[in-house]
Protein backbone atom coordinates (compact mmCIF):
# COMPACT_ATOMS: atom_id res chain seq x y z
CA UNK A 1 0.00 0.00 0.00
CA UNK A 2 1.29 3.37 0.82
CA UNK A 3 4.91 4.28 1.24
CA UNK A 4 3.79 7.67 2.33
CA UNK A 5 4.01 9.11 5.78
CA UNK A 6 2.56 12.26 7.23
CA UNK A 7 5.00 14.40 9.08
CA UNK A 8 3.57 16.65 11.76
CA UNK A 9 5.93 19.19 13.24
CA UNK A 10 5.44 20.57 16.74
CA UNK A 11 7.18 23.44 18.44
CA UNK A 12 6.76 22.35 22.05
CA UNK A 13 7.38 19.07 23.86
CA UNK A 14 4.26 19.33 26.02
CA UNK A 15 2.10 19.85 22.93
CA UNK A 16 3.86 16.91 21.33
CA UNK A 17 3.15 14.67 24.32
CA UNK A 18 -0.53 15.61 24.30
CA UNK A 19 -0.67 15.05 20.54
CA UNK A 20 0.91 11.61 20.84
CA UNK A 21 -1.78 10.60 23.28
CA UNK A 22 -4.56 11.88 20.98
CA UNK A 23 -3.09 10.21 17.89
CA UNK A 24 -2.77 6.93 19.71
CA UNK A 25 -6.30 7.24 21.05
CA UNK A 26 -7.53 7.71 17.47
CA UNK A 27 -5.72 4.48 16.50
CA UNK A 28 -3.24 5.92 14.05
CA UNK A 29 0.12 4.30 13.81
CA UNK A 30 3.07 6.47 14.85
CA UNK A 31 6.10 5.38 12.87
CA UNK A 32 8.73 7.45 14.59
CA UNK A 33 9.26 10.70 16.47
CA UNK A 34 12.32 12.91 16.07
CA UNK A 35 13.18 15.29 18.90
CA UNK A 36 16.11 17.59 19.58
CA UNK A 37 16.40 16.28 23.13
CA UNK A 38 15.03 13.34 25.11
CA UNK A 39 11.43 14.08 26.04
CA UNK A 40 10.49 12.75 29.45
CA UNK A 41 7.66 10.23 29.31
CA UNK A 42 7.56 10.05 25.50
CA UNK A 43 8.38 6.35 25.42
CA UNK A 44 5.49 5.61 27.76
CA UNK A 45 3.11 7.83 25.80
CA UNK A 46 4.11 6.11 22.53
CA UNK A 47 3.59 2.72 24.12
CA UNK A 48 7.12 1.54 23.37
CA UNK A 49 8.27 -1.61 25.11
CA UNK A 50 10.36 -0.83 28.21
CA UNK A 51 14.08 -0.72 27.57
CA UNK A 52 16.14 -3.76 28.39
CA UNK A 53 19.40 -1.83 28.59
CA UNK A 54 19.32 -2.03 32.38
CA UNK A 55 19.58 -5.81 32.22
CA UNK A 56 22.41 -5.54 29.69
CA UNK A 57 24.11 -3.01 31.96
CA UNK A 58 23.91 -5.37 34.93
CA UNK A 59 25.46 -8.18 32.90
CA UNK A 60 28.22 -5.88 31.65
CA UNK A 61 28.95 -4.79 35.20
CA UNK A 62 29.26 -8.41 36.27
CA UNK A 63 31.64 -9.06 33.38
CA UNK A 64 33.71 -6.05 34.42
CA UNK A 65 33.88 -7.33 37.99
CA UNK A 66 35.03 -10.76 36.80
CA UNK A 67 37.64 -9.22 34.51
CA UNK A 68 38.97 -7.12 37.40
CA UNK A 69 39.19 -10.13 39.71
CA UNK A 70 40.94 -12.26 37.09
CA UNK A 71 43.27 -9.43 36.12
CA UNK A 72 44.33 -8.50 39.65
CA UNK A 73 44.74 -12.15 40.55
CA UNK A 74 47.01 -12.69 37.58
CA UNK A 75 49.01 -9.47 37.91
CA UNK A 76 49.44 -9.20 41.65
CA UNK A 77 49.23 -12.78 42.93
CA UNK A 78 50.23 -15.27 40.26
CA UNK A 79 52.56 -13.59 37.85
CA UNK A 80 54.56 -11.14 39.90
CA UNK A 81 53.79 -11.01 43.62
CA UNK A 82 55.29 -7.89 45.15
CA UNK A 83 55.87 -6.90 48.72
CA UNK A 84 53.88 -3.71 49.07
CA UNK A 85 53.79 -2.45 52.64
CA UNK A 86 54.26 -5.99 53.94
CA UNK A 87 50.85 -7.06 52.74
CA UNK A 88 50.29 -10.79 52.16
CA UNK A 89 51.02 -11.08 48.46
CA UNK A 90 50.34 -14.74 47.90
CA UNK A 91 46.65 -14.90 48.54
CA UNK A 92 43.93 -13.11 46.66
CA UNK A 93 41.48 -13.07 49.55
CA UNK A 94 43.94 -11.58 52.03
CA UNK A 95 44.82 -8.87 49.57
CA UNK A 96 41.28 -8.28 48.40
CA UNK A 97 40.62 -4.93 50.14
CA UNK A 98 43.40 -3.37 48.11
CA UNK A 99 41.76 -4.57 44.90
CA UNK A 100 38.27 -3.32 45.68
CA UNK A 101 38.81 0.11 44.07
CA UNK A 102 39.96 -1.58 40.87
CA UNK A 103 37.06 -4.00 40.95
CA UNK A 104 34.69 -1.11 41.42
CA UNK A 105 36.22 0.99 38.64
CA UNK A 106 36.25 -1.79 36.10
CA UNK A 107 32.65 -2.68 36.93
CA UNK A 108 31.65 0.90 36.18
CA UNK A 109 33.93 1.11 33.15
CA UNK A 110 32.54 -2.03 31.54
CA UNK A 111 28.94 -1.20 32.33
CA UNK A 112 29.23 2.35 30.98
CA UNK A 113 31.21 1.69 27.81
CA UNK A 114 29.49 -1.51 26.76
CA UNK A 115 26.14 0.11 27.43
CA UNK A 116 26.97 3.01 25.09
CA UNK A 117 28.25 0.59 22.43
CA UNK A 118 25.10 -1.51 22.80
CA UNK A 119 23.00 1.58 22.41
CA UNK A 120 24.84 2.52 19.20
CA UNK A 121 24.48 -0.97 17.76
CA UNK A 122 20.84 -1.18 18.70
CA UNK A 123 20.07 2.21 17.15
CA UNK A 124 22.15 1.31 14.09
CA UNK A 125 24.53 4.19 14.54
CA UNK A 126 28.04 4.01 13.21
CA UNK A 127 30.65 6.49 11.95
CA UNK A 128 29.75 8.30 8.71
CA UNK A 129 26.19 7.21 8.95
CA UNK A 130 23.79 9.50 7.18
CA UNK A 131 21.33 11.25 9.46
CA UNK A 132 17.86 9.75 9.48
CA UNK A 133 15.91 12.74 10.62
CA UNK A 134 13.72 13.98 7.79
CA UNK A 135 13.84 17.63 8.80
CA UNK A 136 16.91 19.50 10.03
CA UNK A 137 14.80 21.53 12.41
CA UNK A 138 14.47 18.48 14.65
CA UNK A 139 18.08 19.04 15.65
CA UNK A 140 17.24 22.54 16.75
CA UNK A 141 13.89 23.37 18.30
CA UNK A 142 11.19 21.36 16.54
CA UNK A 143 9.63 17.97 17.15
CA UNK A 144 8.55 15.77 14.28
CA UNK A 145 6.01 12.98 14.40
CA UNK A 146 5.76 10.54 11.53
CA UNK A 147 2.38 8.90 11.19
CA UNK A 148 1.83 6.22 8.56
CA UNK A 149 -0.55 7.55 5.93
CA UNK A 150 -3.30 5.02 5.55
CA UNK A 151 -6.81 5.79 4.41
CA UNK A 152 -7.92 9.35 4.13
CA UNK A 153 -4.81 11.48 4.03
CA UNK A 154 -6.64 14.80 4.10
CA UNK A 155 -8.67 13.86 7.14
CA UNK A 156 -5.57 12.66 8.93
CA UNK A 157 -3.71 15.86 8.07
CA UNK A 158 -6.54 17.95 9.39
CA UNK A 159 -6.65 15.82 12.55
CA UNK A 160 -2.94 16.35 13.09
CA UNK A 161 -3.30 20.08 12.58
CA UNK A 162 -5.88 20.07 15.35
CA UNK A 163 -3.49 18.39 17.77
CA UNK A 164 -1.35 21.50 17.67
CA UNK A 165 1.08 20.81 14.84
CA UNK A 166 2.68 23.93 13.38
CA UNK A 167 3.18 22.21 10.05
CA UNK A 168 1.87 19.02 8.41
CA UNK A 169 3.22 17.55 5.20
CA UNK A 170 3.02 14.30 3.30
CA UNK A 171 6.28 12.71 2.40
CA UNK A 172 7.76 9.51 0.98
CA UNK A 173 8.85 7.00 3.54
CA UNK A 174 12.58 6.39 3.50
Amino acid at each position, binding site marked *: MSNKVIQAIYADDDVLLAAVKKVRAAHHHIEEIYTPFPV*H*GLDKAMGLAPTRI*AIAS*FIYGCIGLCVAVAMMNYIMIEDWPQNI*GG*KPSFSFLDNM*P*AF*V*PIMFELTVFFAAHLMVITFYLRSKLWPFKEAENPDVRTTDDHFLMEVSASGNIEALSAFLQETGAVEVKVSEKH
Partner: protein
Amino acid sequence: MYTFSNKLRLSAFVLMIVGVLGLGYGFLAAPGTVEEAKAMVADAHHGGGHEEVATHDAHGTHNEEHATHDTSHDEHLLHQLQNKPWAGLYVAAFFFMMISLGVLAFYAIQRVSQAGWSPLLFRVMEGITAYLLPGAILVFVILVLSGVHMNHLFIWMDPEVVAHDELIQGKTGYLNVPFFLIRAVIYIAGWAAYRHFSRKFSIAQDTADDHSYFKRNFKISAGFLVFFLVSESMMSWDWIMSVDPHWYSTLFGWYVFASMFVSGITVIALITIYLKSRGYLEEVNNSHIHDLAKFMFGISIFWTYLWFSQFMLIWYSNIPEEVTYFVTRIEDYKLPFFGMVVLNFVFPLLVLMNSDYKRLNWFVVMTGIMILLGHYLDIYNMIMPATVGDQWFIGIGEVGGVLFFLGLFIFIVFTALTKAPLLPKRNPFIEESKHFHY
Protein backbone atom coordinates in the same frame (compact mmCIF):
# COMPACT_ATOMS: atom_id res chain seq x y z
CA MET B 1 -6.37 14.42 60.40
CA TYR B 2 -4.72 11.23 61.48
CA THR B 3 -6.07 9.40 64.48
CA PHE B 4 -3.76 7.20 66.50
CA SER B 5 -5.39 3.77 66.35
CA ASN B 6 -5.84 2.09 69.71
CA LYS B 7 -4.23 -1.06 68.41
CA LEU B 8 -1.03 0.73 67.52
CA ARG B 9 -1.03 2.69 70.76
CA LEU B 10 -1.46 -0.55 72.68
CA SER B 11 1.39 -2.18 70.77
CA ALA B 12 3.60 0.79 71.56
CA PHE B 13 2.88 0.42 75.28
CA VAL B 14 3.38 -3.34 75.16
CA LEU B 15 6.73 -2.80 73.44
CA MET B 16 7.75 -0.29 76.09
CA ILE B 17 6.74 -2.54 78.98
CA VAL B 18 8.43 -5.60 77.51
CA GLY B 19 11.45 -3.43 76.80
CA VAL B 20 11.66 -2.15 80.36
CA LEU B 21 11.43 -5.73 81.65
CA GLY B 22 14.20 -6.77 79.28
CA LEU B 23 16.38 -3.84 80.27
CA GLY B 24 15.72 -4.54 83.94
CA TYR B 25 16.69 -8.16 83.48
CA GLY B 26 19.88 -7.05 81.76
CA PHE B 27 20.83 -4.82 84.67
CA LEU B 28 19.92 -7.44 87.30
CA ALA B 29 21.83 -10.15 85.48
CA ALA B 30 25.03 -8.11 85.43
CA PRO B 31 27.50 -9.53 87.93
CA GLY B 32 28.20 -7.63 91.18
CA THR B 33 31.48 -9.25 92.11
CA VAL B 34 34.53 -10.69 90.44
CA GLU B 35 33.52 -14.22 91.43
CA GLU B 36 30.14 -13.89 89.80
CA ALA B 37 31.72 -12.54 86.65
CA LYS B 38 34.16 -15.43 86.50
CA ALA B 39 31.38 -17.91 87.08
CA MET B 40 29.32 -16.38 84.27
CA VAL B 41 32.15 -16.56 81.80
CA ALA B 42 33.08 -20.07 82.93
CA ASP B 43 29.49 -21.18 82.32
CA ALA B 44 29.42 -19.63 78.92
CA HIS B 45 32.68 -21.33 77.96
CA HIS B 46 31.65 -24.68 79.43
CA GLY B 47 34.24 -24.46 82.14
CA GLY B 48 37.10 -23.98 79.73
CA GLY B 49 39.80 -21.46 80.45
CA HIS B 50 38.91 -17.99 79.35
CA GLU B 51 41.22 -16.65 76.71
CA GLU B 52 43.09 -13.45 77.25
CA VAL B 53 40.86 -10.52 76.37
CA ALA B 54 41.93 -8.73 73.26
CA THR B 55 44.54 -6.35 74.51
CA HIS B 56 43.44 -3.67 72.14
CA ASP B 57 40.10 -2.76 73.56
CA ALA B 58 40.11 0.52 75.34
CA HIS B 59 40.32 -0.90 78.83
CA GLY B 60 43.28 -3.05 78.03
CA THR B 61 45.51 -0.44 76.52
CA HIS B 62 45.76 1.89 79.46
CA ASN B 63 47.64 -0.33 81.80
CA GLU B 64 50.53 -2.67 81.07
CA GLU B 65 50.31 -4.44 84.42
CA HIS B 66 46.78 -5.43 83.59
CA ALA B 67 47.53 -8.19 81.20
CA THR B 68 50.08 -9.86 83.40
CA HIS B 69 48.00 -10.13 86.56
CA ASP B 70 45.11 -12.48 86.67
CA THR B 71 43.30 -10.53 89.35
CA SER B 72 43.29 -7.31 87.41
CA HIS B 73 42.20 -9.27 84.39
CA ASP B 74 39.25 -10.65 86.29
CA GLU B 75 38.35 -7.21 87.51
CA HIS B 76 38.52 -6.02 83.95
CA LEU B 77 36.12 -8.78 82.98
CA LEU B 78 33.78 -7.67 85.74
CA HIS B 79 33.80 -4.13 84.41
CA GLN B 80 33.02 -5.30 80.93
CA LEU B 81 30.08 -7.36 82.12
CA GLN B 82 28.84 -4.47 84.24
CA ASN B 83 29.09 -2.21 81.24
CA LYS B 84 27.08 -4.54 79.04
CA PRO B 85 23.52 -3.53 80.06
CA TRP B 86 24.52 0.14 79.92
CA ALA B 87 26.06 -0.24 76.51
CA GLY B 88 22.97 -2.07 75.25
CA LEU B 89 20.77 0.73 76.56
CA TYR B 90 23.02 3.38 75.06
CA VAL B 91 23.15 1.75 71.61
CA ALA B 92 19.36 1.52 71.44
CA ALA B 93 18.85 5.07 72.74
CA PHE B 94 21.34 6.47 70.29
CA PHE B 95 19.96 4.45 67.37
CA PHE B 96 16.43 5.83 67.65
CA MET B 97 17.64 9.35 68.31
CA MET B 98 19.83 9.05 65.24
CA ILE B 99 16.87 8.04 63.04
CA SER B 100 15.02 11.16 64.02
CA LEU B 101 18.09 13.35 63.56
CA GLY B 102 18.66 11.87 60.10
CA VAL B 103 15.08 12.67 59.16
CA LEU B 104 15.54 16.23 60.41
CA ALA B 105 18.54 16.66 58.12
CA PHE B 106 16.62 15.15 55.20
CA TYR B 107 13.72 17.48 55.90
CA ALA B 108 16.00 20.53 55.99
CA ILE B 109 17.55 19.47 52.68
CA GLN B 110 14.10 19.19 51.09
CA ARG B 111 13.30 22.68 52.38
CA VAL B 112 16.53 24.22 51.17
CA SER B 113 16.50 22.57 47.76
CA GLN B 114 12.80 23.51 47.43
CA ALA B 115 12.12 20.01 46.20
CA GLY B 116 8.84 19.65 44.37
CA TRP B 117 8.21 15.97 44.98
CA SER B 118 8.40 15.80 48.75
CA PRO B 119 6.01 18.33 50.37
CA LEU B 120 3.34 15.62 50.65
CA LEU B 121 5.68 13.81 53.01
CA PHE B 122 6.60 16.83 55.15
CA ARG B 123 4.12 16.03 57.91
CA VAL B 124 5.42 12.48 58.12
CA MET B 125 8.96 13.83 58.51
CA GLU B 126 7.83 16.37 61.10
CA GLY B 127 6.15 13.57 63.00
CA ILE B 128 9.35 11.56 63.09
CA THR B 129 11.45 14.52 64.18
CA ALA B 130 9.09 15.00 67.14
CA TYR B 131 11.05 12.16 68.72
CA LEU B 132 14.33 14.08 68.45
CA LEU B 133 14.05 16.13 71.62
CA PRO B 134 12.86 13.36 73.98
CA GLY B 135 15.22 10.89 72.32
CA ALA B 136 18.20 13.22 72.59
CA ILE B 137 17.37 14.01 76.21
CA LEU B 138 17.37 10.29 77.02
CA VAL B 139 20.80 9.96 75.40
CA PHE B 140 21.91 13.01 77.35
CA VAL B 141 20.73 11.44 80.62
CA ILE B 142 22.85 8.38 79.88
CA LEU B 143 25.82 10.66 79.17
CA VAL B 144 25.28 12.47 82.46
CA LEU B 145 25.09 9.15 84.29
CA SER B 146 28.41 8.23 82.68
CA GLY B 147 29.78 11.56 83.79
CA VAL B 148 28.88 10.86 87.42
CA HIS B 149 30.46 7.39 87.12
CA MET B 150 27.29 5.35 87.23
CA ASN B 151 28.78 3.38 84.37
CA HIS B 152 32.08 3.11 82.53
CA LEU B 153 31.08 3.54 78.93
CA PHE B 154 33.60 6.35 78.48
CA ILE B 155 36.85 5.33 80.07
CA TRP B 156 38.35 8.79 79.63
CA MET B 157 35.90 9.95 82.31
CA ASP B 158 37.71 7.77 84.84
CA PRO B 159 40.44 9.90 86.52
CA GLU B 160 42.43 6.79 87.41
CA VAL B 161 42.60 5.71 83.78
CA VAL B 162 43.63 9.17 82.69
CA ALA B 163 46.37 9.29 85.32
CA HIS B 164 48.06 6.30 83.66
CA ASP B 165 47.42 7.29 80.09
CA GLU B 166 49.50 9.92 78.42
CA LEU B 167 47.44 9.92 75.22
CA ILE B 168 44.21 10.73 77.03
CA GLN B 169 46.04 13.29 79.20
CA GLY B 170 46.88 15.13 76.01
CA LYS B 171 43.20 15.25 75.09
CA THR B 172 41.77 16.36 78.43
CA GLY B 173 41.33 19.90 77.11
CA TYR B 174 38.56 18.54 74.93
CA LEU B 175 37.64 15.29 76.63
CA ASN B 176 36.55 16.37 80.07
CA VAL B 177 33.13 15.81 81.57
CA PRO B 178 31.87 19.41 81.97
CA PHE B 179 32.88 20.51 78.47
CA PHE B 180 31.54 17.25 77.06
CA LEU B 181 28.12 17.85 78.60
CA ILE B 182 28.09 21.52 77.61
CA ARG B 183 28.75 20.55 74.02
CA ALA B 184 25.96 17.97 74.18
CA VAL B 185 23.55 20.63 75.42
CA ILE B 186 24.54 22.95 72.57
CA TYR B 187 23.98 20.28 69.91
CA ILE B 188 20.63 19.22 71.31
CA ALA B 189 19.46 22.79 71.82
CA GLY B 190 20.38 23.70 68.24
CA TRP B 191 18.60 20.73 66.71
CA ALA B 192 15.52 21.11 68.91
CA ALA B 193 15.28 24.84 68.18
CA TYR B 194 15.33 24.25 64.43
CA ARG B 195 12.78 21.47 64.77
CA HIS B 196 10.53 23.70 66.85
CA PHE B 197 10.56 26.68 64.49
CA SER B 198 10.39 24.77 61.22
CA ARG B 199 7.39 22.86 62.51
CA LYS B 200 5.77 26.07 63.71
CA PHE B 201 6.31 27.83 60.38
CA SER B 202 5.17 24.78 58.47
CA ILE B 203 1.85 24.73 60.30
CA ALA B 204 1.49 28.51 60.12
CA GLN B 205 1.96 28.30 56.35
CA ASP B 206 -1.22 26.21 56.10
CA THR B 207 -3.39 29.18 56.99
CA ALA B 208 -1.19 31.97 55.65
CA ASP B 209 -2.10 34.33 52.80
CA ASP B 210 1.40 34.62 51.38
CA HIS B 211 4.65 32.67 51.24
CA SER B 212 6.44 34.47 54.07
CA TYR B 213 6.45 31.46 56.40
CA PHE B 214 7.67 29.28 53.58
CA LYS B 215 10.54 31.68 52.97
CA ARG B 216 11.43 31.87 56.63
CA ASN B 217 11.47 28.09 56.76
CA PHE B 218 13.84 28.09 53.81
CA LYS B 219 16.19 30.48 55.60
CA ILE B 220 16.29 28.69 58.93
CA SER B 221 16.70 25.37 57.15
CA ALA B 222 19.75 26.64 55.33
CA GLY B 223 21.18 27.92 58.61
CA PHE B 224 20.38 24.66 60.32
CA LEU B 225 22.22 22.60 57.72
CA VAL B 226 25.41 24.52 58.39
CA PHE B 227 24.99 24.03 62.13
CA PHE B 228 24.04 20.40 61.63
CA LEU B 229 27.08 19.43 59.60
CA VAL B 230 29.41 20.73 62.28
CA SER B 231 27.40 19.61 65.29
CA GLU B 232 26.65 16.16 63.87
CA SER B 233 30.31 15.56 63.18
CA MET B 234 31.35 16.69 66.66
CA MET B 235 28.48 14.74 68.20
CA SER B 236 29.77 11.57 66.57
CA TRP B 237 33.27 12.20 67.94
CA ASP B 238 31.91 12.90 71.40
CA TRP B 239 29.20 10.34 71.78
CA ILE B 240 30.65 7.48 69.78
CA MET B 241 34.28 7.86 68.82
CA SER B 242 35.39 8.85 72.32
CA VAL B 243 34.52 5.40 73.67
CA ASP B 244 37.79 4.49 71.94
CA PRO B 245 39.74 7.51 73.17
CA HIS B 246 43.02 6.45 71.56
CA TRP B 247 41.63 5.93 68.13
CA TYR B 248 40.37 8.44 65.64
CA SER B 249 39.15 8.52 62.10
CA THR B 250 38.83 11.74 60.14
CA LEU B 251 35.75 10.65 58.21
CA PHE B 252 33.92 9.34 61.25
CA GLY B 253 31.35 12.14 61.25
CA TRP B 254 30.42 11.43 57.66
CA TYR B 255 30.23 7.75 58.35
CA VAL B 256 27.79 8.20 61.22
CA PHE B 257 25.88 10.71 59.12
CA ALA B 258 25.45 8.18 56.30
CA SER B 259 24.13 5.70 58.81
CA MET B 260 21.60 8.12 60.29
CA PHE B 261 20.56 9.44 56.90
CA VAL B 262 19.76 6.07 55.40
CA SER B 263 18.00 4.90 58.58
CA GLY B 264 15.95 8.10 58.64
CA ILE B 265 14.90 7.85 54.99
CA THR B 266 14.00 4.21 55.51
CA VAL B 267 11.76 5.12 58.43
CA ILE B 268 10.07 7.85 56.35
CA ALA B 269 9.33 5.22 53.71
CA LEU B 270 8.05 2.69 56.26
CA ILE B 271 5.76 5.16 58.03
CA THR B 272 4.49 6.55 54.72
CA ILE B 273 3.64 3.06 53.52
CA TYR B 274 1.97 2.29 56.84
CA LEU B 275 -0.14 5.47 56.74
CA LYS B 276 -1.08 4.82 53.14
CA SER B 277 -2.17 1.30 53.97
CA ARG B 278 -4.48 2.79 56.61
CA GLY B 279 -6.09 5.05 54.03
CA TYR B 280 -4.22 8.28 54.79
CA LEU B 281 -1.98 10.23 52.41
CA GLU B 282 -4.20 9.42 49.39
CA GLU B 283 -2.11 11.63 47.15
CA VAL B 284 1.14 9.82 47.76
CA ASN B 285 1.67 7.53 44.80
CA ASN B 286 4.27 4.95 43.95
CA SER B 287 6.53 7.57 42.37
CA HIS B 288 7.06 9.05 45.83
CA ILE B 289 7.85 5.60 47.21
CA HIS B 290 10.16 5.07 44.25
CA ASP B 291 12.07 8.25 45.10
CA LEU B 292 12.43 7.27 48.75
CA ALA B 293 13.62 3.81 47.73
CA LYS B 294 16.15 5.39 45.38
CA PHE B 295 17.50 7.35 48.33
CA MET B 296 17.61 4.17 50.41
CA PHE B 297 19.54 2.47 47.64
CA GLY B 298 21.87 5.37 46.98
CA ILE B 299 22.67 6.21 50.60
CA SER B 300 23.23 2.53 51.38
CA ILE B 301 25.95 2.57 48.75
CA PHE B 302 27.26 5.86 50.09
CA TRP B 303 27.45 4.32 53.57
CA THR B 304 29.39 1.38 52.15
CA TYR B 305 31.74 3.72 50.39
CA LEU B 306 32.57 5.46 53.66
CA TRP B 307 32.73 2.21 55.61
CA PHE B 308 35.16 0.81 53.11
CA SER B 309 37.21 4.01 52.81
CA GLN B 310 37.67 4.06 56.56
CA PHE B 311 38.51 0.38 56.64
CA MET B 312 40.84 0.21 53.66
CA LEU B 313 43.05 3.16 54.53
CA ILE B 314 43.55 1.90 58.06
CA TRP B 315 44.04 -1.70 56.95
CA TYR B 316 46.52 -0.65 54.29
CA SER B 317 48.65 1.67 56.38
CA ASN B 318 48.56 -0.81 59.26
CA ILE B 319 49.60 1.74 61.90
CA PRO B 320 49.34 0.00 65.27
CA GLU B 321 47.32 2.61 67.14
CA GLU B 322 44.81 2.85 64.29
CA VAL B 323 44.51 -0.72 63.17
CA THR B 324 43.62 -2.03 66.64
CA TYR B 325 40.13 -0.73 66.02
CA PHE B 326 39.57 -3.17 63.19
CA VAL B 327 41.62 -5.95 64.75
CA THR B 328 39.21 -6.01 67.70
CA ARG B 329 36.22 -5.97 65.42
CA ILE B 330 37.42 -8.67 63.08
CA GLU B 331 38.69 -10.93 65.85
CA ASP B 332 35.86 -10.61 68.35
CA TYR B 333 32.97 -9.29 66.27
CA LYS B 334 33.32 -11.17 63.00
CA LEU B 335 29.64 -11.97 62.59
CA PRO B 336 28.09 -8.56 63.41
CA PHE B 337 30.91 -6.70 61.66
CA PHE B 338 30.64 -8.50 58.34
CA GLY B 339 26.97 -9.30 58.82
CA MET B 340 26.13 -5.61 58.80
CA VAL B 341 27.94 -5.16 55.49
CA VAL B 342 25.72 -7.84 54.00
CA LEU B 343 22.59 -6.25 55.49
CA ASN B 344 23.54 -2.68 54.69
CA PHE B 345 25.14 -3.13 51.30
CA VAL B 346 24.72 -6.46 49.54
CA PHE B 347 21.05 -6.84 50.40
CA PRO B 348 19.83 -3.35 49.37
CA LEU B 349 22.14 -3.41 46.36
CA LEU B 350 20.68 -6.58 44.93
CA VAL B 351 17.07 -6.11 46.01
CA LEU B 352 16.60 -2.43 45.22
CA MET B 353 18.64 -2.32 42.01
CA ASN B 354 15.67 -3.05 39.79
CA SER B 355 13.64 0.06 39.13
CA ASP B 356 10.28 -1.74 39.32
CA TYR B 357 11.00 -3.25 42.72
CA LYS B 358 11.45 0.22 44.21
CA ARG B 359 7.75 0.81 43.59
CA LEU B 360 6.56 -2.34 45.31
CA ASN B 361 5.59 -1.59 48.89
CA TRP B 362 6.41 -4.99 50.30
CA PHE B 363 9.86 -4.91 48.73
CA VAL B 364 10.57 -1.51 50.23
CA VAL B 365 9.26 -2.59 53.63
CA MET B 366 11.28 -5.80 53.63
CA THR B 367 14.48 -4.07 52.57
CA GLY B 368 13.79 -1.24 54.98
CA ILE B 369 13.60 -3.60 57.94
CA MET B 370 16.88 -5.22 56.87
CA ILE B 371 18.54 -1.81 56.52
CA LEU B 372 17.36 -0.79 59.99
CA LEU B 373 18.65 -4.02 61.52
CA GLY B 374 21.92 -3.49 59.72
CA HIS B 375 22.34 0.03 61.00
CA TYR B 376 21.47 -1.01 64.53
CA LEU B 377 24.34 -3.48 64.19
CA ASP B 378 26.48 -0.67 62.84
CA ILE B 379 25.99 1.39 66.00
CA TYR B 380 26.41 -1.78 68.06
CA ASN B 381 29.79 -2.36 66.42
CA MET B 382 30.81 1.21 67.15
CA ILE B 383 30.04 1.09 70.87
CA MET B 384 30.43 -2.48 72.06
CA PRO B 385 34.06 -3.40 71.32
CA ALA B 386 35.32 -0.54 73.46
CA THR B 387 32.87 -1.03 76.29
CA VAL B 388 32.38 -4.78 76.68
CA GLY B 389 35.28 -6.22 74.68
CA ASP B 390 34.72 -9.80 73.65
CA GLN B 391 31.87 -10.24 76.14
CA TRP B 392 29.28 -9.11 73.63
CA PHE B 393 26.03 -10.88 73.15
CA ILE B 394 22.71 -9.69 71.77
CA GLY B 395 20.51 -11.03 74.51
CA ILE B 396 17.45 -10.04 76.52
CA GLY B 397 18.99 -6.77 77.70
CA GLU B 398 19.88 -5.53 74.22
CA VAL B 399 16.62 -6.63 72.60
CA GLY B 400 14.76 -5.10 75.55
CA GLY B 401 16.53 -1.79 74.89
CA VAL B 402 15.51 -1.84 71.24
CA LEU B 403 11.90 -2.74 72.07
CA PHE B 404 11.60 -0.03 74.71
CA PHE B 405 12.88 2.72 72.44
CA LEU B 406 10.88 1.37 69.50
CA GLY B 407 7.72 1.58 71.58
CA LEU B 408 8.55 5.08 72.74
CA PHE B 409 9.42 6.09 69.18
CA ILE B 410 6.11 4.78 67.82
CA PHE B 411 4.17 6.45 70.62
CA ILE B 412 5.78 9.88 70.21
CA VAL B 413 5.87 9.86 66.41
CA PHE B 414 2.28 8.79 65.89
CA THR B 415 1.05 11.14 68.60
CA ALA B 416 2.79 13.97 66.78
CA LEU B 417 1.17 12.88 63.51
CA THR B 418 -2.29 13.41 65.00
CA LYS B 419 -1.47 17.03 65.88
CA ALA B 420 -1.65 18.53 62.37
CA PRO B 421 -3.31 17.71 59.04
CA LEU B 422 -1.19 15.29 57.02
CA LEU B 423 -1.45 17.52 53.96
CA PRO B 424 0.50 20.81 54.13
CA LYS B 425 -2.10 22.39 51.91
CA ARG B 426 -0.70 25.88 51.50
CA ASN B 427 2.85 24.80 50.62
CA PRO B 428 3.70 26.45 47.28
CA PHE B 429 4.97 23.16 45.86
CA ILE B 430 2.07 21.03 46.98
CA GLU B 431 0.49 20.85 43.53
CA GLU B 432 3.73 19.69 41.98
CA SER B 433 4.05 17.09 44.69
CA LYS B 434 0.52 15.83 44.06
CA HIS B 435 1.19 15.47 40.34
CA PHE B 436 4.49 13.78 40.83
CA HIS B 437 4.36 10.93 38.34
CA TYR B 438 6.91 9.46 36.07
